[in-house]
């Protein structure tokens, strides 16, 4: 019993320590982000790595999810008009699937990459070397990645929405007894500017969460190659859990502003 309690106490202490360290890093990152001149060049490099290089995979997953959504809703809604399929695909993509699935893909691709890269830098003394060279690791490494992640998630989410709704249309007219006119009517029936803004707001915060968490976990790495491996895994798991938690909190916000 006492061992069990000690375990819980230890976990709470570890959690509190991480929250404190992450808070300090967040404050330093916020301060560094306000000095774009110092990291502008690296931010462009990261924007390509985080955004443009991730786009094909994100769009493939968006196309598949739009198609699945159209087919499943078409098969389920037998008693109601089929234009609802367009409505469902637009609602599903804009409010959840485009930002969330893009974020999960980015967590696997970008989050693990940043975690492993910074983790390797930490265990091979490159972070210490930066400090001794009078450079600030937060300005050099964290700020450009966080800014690139936040900014590049916006076009990624926009493209994911477009491709998802387009693939939903393709599946609907190919596999369901409905016309383009019905599908477009359904999409228009759902669409309102707030839903697109909500989609982008989610993408923006997910972008920050992915890159910041990956940087934080990477900078905590210890212990050689095995430590770097653990860091990459921890980065992906932490990002996915945090994104899902953030999504839960953002949903009521959307309802409030609708």
């Amino acid at each position, binding site marked *: 019993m006492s061992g069990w309690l000690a375990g819980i106490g230890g976990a709470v202490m570890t959690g509190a320590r991480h929250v404190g360290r992450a808070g300090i890093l967040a404050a330093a990152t916020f301060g560094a982000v306000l000095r774009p001149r110092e990291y502008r060049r690296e931010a462009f490099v990261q924007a390509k790595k985080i955004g443009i290089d991730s786009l094909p995979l994100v769009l493939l997953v968006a196309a598949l999810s739009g198609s699945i959504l159209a087919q499943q809703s078409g098969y389920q809604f037998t008693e109601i008009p089929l234009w609802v399929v367009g409505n469902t695909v637009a609602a599903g993509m804009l409010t959840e699937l485009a930002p969330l699935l893009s974020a999960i893909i980015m967590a696997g691709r970008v989050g693990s990459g940043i975690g492993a890269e910074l983790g390797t830098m930490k265990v*091979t003394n*490159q972070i*210490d*070397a930066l400090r*001794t*060279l009078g*450079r600030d690791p937060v300005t050099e490494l964290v700020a450009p990645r966080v800014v690139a992640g936040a900014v590049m998630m916006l076009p990624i989410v926009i493209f994911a929405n477009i491709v998802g709704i387009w693939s939903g249309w393709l599946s609907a007219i190919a596999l369901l007894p409905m016309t383009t006119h019905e599908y477009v009517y359904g999409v228009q029936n759902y669409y309102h500017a707030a839903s697109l803004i909500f989609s982008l707001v989610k993408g923006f915060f997910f972008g920050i969460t992915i890159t910041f968490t990956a940087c934080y976990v990477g900078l905590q790495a210890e212990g050689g190659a095995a430590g770097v491996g653990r860091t990459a895994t921890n980065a992906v798991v932490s990002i996915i859990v945090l994104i899902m938690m953030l999504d839960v909190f953002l949903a009521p916000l959307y309802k409030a502003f609708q």
Partner: protein
Amino acid sequence: MIEIRDLRKVLNGKAVLDGVDLDIHEGMSLVIMGPSGTGKSVLLKHIVGLFDPDRGEILVEGMSVPRAGGKEIKEIRSKISYVFQNAALFDSLTAGQNIQLGLPEEHCRRVPALDDPLVREAIEHVNLGHEVLRLMPAELSGGMQKRVAIARAIVGKQKYILYDEPTTGLDPVNANVINRLIARLQGEIGATSIIVTHDVESAFYLGDRIVLLANGRVQASGSPDELRESRDPIVQDFLHPKLETEEFDG
């Protein structure tokens, strides 16, 4: 001058440094040696503020390292360069860009590394050709990586150069090349060198003064000759290690 007073640091429950006192005068070549795990690298990291001491003081030209704020620590670090044990070159940058990091940020933004005369001078100092400047660290041998790291340390012409196990992981030929390079640079640029090593041969070759750390303290200190003649059993054990052999029955 660097002054270290009553320095204590506990890591993982063990007092790695326990009351270290040391004066490092300008222009000298000080070698800190001792068995693995005696806090040699930890001591170096305290000098540049990578570790905070649990007790004690470190003064670099009168400025307290543990009490330095952001601006002061930057000023202290601008006087010191550090050669890490594993070279610690940045994988994503070329050798030239790595060397240029030893110069102020404003300078790096203005001048491309390949055309930088200071970078070219530094790579010549370590006996490497200009073609190396274009290569990535992964394309360099261990010995070349160390030399690029030394070029990065000398490019800014800092007053103090800290070498953390500069020959570890190198074959004897390359280790000898690095030792001769450090000795030559000491003569050419006149910086104060602090060299951490557990290699006795390197220590006696490089040091004007040698400090032996043991059990978290300065066990012995003096010129190479004074250390050779020391009757302290710990010093003699370190300088002339005996290989213990076990005898097997039948």
